[in-house]
């Protein structure tokens, strides 16, 4: 158990990081992510439009055109376009609640995020934090759909980045209500499930009854997301990086890339226009030695061109994997670079991510 964002969390369970990682990609891994922040944005006038317009002043993504039951990934930016946090934004699909926005933010940033959001919402739009009532788990891997489908077959019909609010039955102690989204942080098909504290323990116990489900700790969570090419806030993205440098332009819908009214829009638009000076890229060391966060990246002449922001061993890639920023001219896949590991230069290449193919269910 280690301290993580103010919570006591396991790095691994008895299986160990490697086996937990491989199990998730082969069967189903269960993650306790209740430390993350969950909140709602609601407009007093009961319309989605008002709430969406308000959120659009804080994130580059397009919110107004979200359908009920749909979700998007985006970032909260400061006025310079630096990333304050990354988050999932959902338009509720539950009848009578389609005007509400549901946000999930990182644990380490949640207090600052809530303050930031609340401080910028206009009169008539409010933020409601639900961390005292709601827990959050994730079930990820190829077996997730069959297993969660046993508790409610409706979840099998969800496609990636959509969600539903349903009753989960066949749970010892009685059925319970949960918000289920087909999304995750591993690159695999799977779900993120939010439910009331008092129901979540029963749900977790029920899921762990399935042979194919194993509890997964922080260690494997990190190696899974790294192989999937997904950013970790505080490491690959932070206030010194903007979404364009971080390769996240895909999360900014086309019409929001010009004339955006969100905090930091000018800096983002300038970077799009003038092209970023550095880019977050995948980096694959040639040998077996992992290169970790902070490792200097050099060009083949020994000139520093960047640094690793996430690095380690990828069990599914069966070798070291890493991400880092390099000067734009070295960001093309195939570019040879050197990594200074324990004082010695080790050859590596810039590569396209992910290191492990995504298995999202798109219908």
């Amino acid at each position, binding site marked *: 158990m280690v301290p993580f964002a103010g919570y006591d969390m396991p*790095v691994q369970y008895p299986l160990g990081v*490697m086996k937990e*990682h491989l199990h998730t990609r082969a069967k189903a891994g269960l993650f306790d992510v209740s430390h993350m922040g969950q909140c709602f944005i609601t407009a007093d006038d009961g319309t989605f439009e008002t709430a969406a317009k308000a959120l659009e002043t804080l994130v580059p993504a397009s919110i107004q055109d979200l359908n009920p039951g749909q979700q998007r990934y985006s970032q909260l930016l400061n006025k310079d376009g630096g990333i304050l946090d990354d988050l999932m934004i959902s338009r509720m699909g539950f009848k009578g609640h389609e005007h509400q926005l549901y946000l999930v933010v990182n644990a380490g940033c949640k207090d600052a995020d809530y303050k930031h959001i609340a401080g910028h919402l206009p009169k008539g739009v409010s933020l409601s934090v639900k961390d005292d009532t709601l827990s959050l788990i994730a079930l990820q891997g190829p077996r997730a759909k069959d297993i969660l489908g046993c508790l409610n077959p409706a979840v099998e019909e969800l496609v990636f980045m959509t969600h539903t609010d349903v009753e989960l039955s066949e749970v010892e102690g009685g059925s319970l209500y949960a918000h289920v989204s087909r999304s995750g942080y591993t690159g695999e098909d799977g779900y993120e499930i939010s439910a009331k504290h008092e129901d979540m323990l029963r749900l977790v116990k029920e899921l762990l009854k399935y042979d194919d489900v194993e509890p997964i700790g922080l*260690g494997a969570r990190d190696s899974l997301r790294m192989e999937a090419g997904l950013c970790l806030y505080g490491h690959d993205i932070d206030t010194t990086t903007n979404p364009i440098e971080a390769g996240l332009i895909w999360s900014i819908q086309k019409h929001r890339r010009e004339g955006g009214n969100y905090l930091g829009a000018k800096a983002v638009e300038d970077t799009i226009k003038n092209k970023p000076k550095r880019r977050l890229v995948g980096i694959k060391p040639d040998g*077996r*030695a992992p290169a970790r966060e902070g490792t200097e990246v050099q060009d083949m002449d020994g000139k520093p061109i960047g640094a690793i922001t996430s690095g380690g*061993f990828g069990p599914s890639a069966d070798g070291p994997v890493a991400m880092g920023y390099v000067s734009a001219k070295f960001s093309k896949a195939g570019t040879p670079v050197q990594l200074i590991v*324990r004082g010695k230069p080790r050859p590596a290449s810039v590569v396209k991510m992910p290191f492990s193919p995504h298995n999202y269910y798109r219908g």
Partner: protein
Amino acid sequence: MSIYFTEDHEWIKVDGDTGIVGISTYAAKALGDVVFVDLPEVGAEFDKGDEAGAVDSVKAASEIYTPVTGEVTEVNELLVDEPAKVNEDPMGKAWFFKVKISDASELDGLMDEAKYKAYLEDM
């Protein structure tokens, strides 16, 4: 052969003026699945306490400090192809390197098996 331990959980088995160096079961367990071992060069000379190599697990990297001053005479090639051996047999087959001990009195500052066991309990 006598065995000694350091506070950083390295062990050294001593036979005459040759020492075999590895990491303890405690260290191997704490590291988790080992994926890479950085061994020193044969012929390299280190002072006691110098960084002589490193171990990478899925979780983290850990430096290996040599318990004695001396010259590296042999390294365990097995760990290059099978780094996981460190988790399997840290006290035996997964030794890291052999060193020619230049100053046996340095061993006096290390812990014997009993002292190391007590050290672990105190931690």
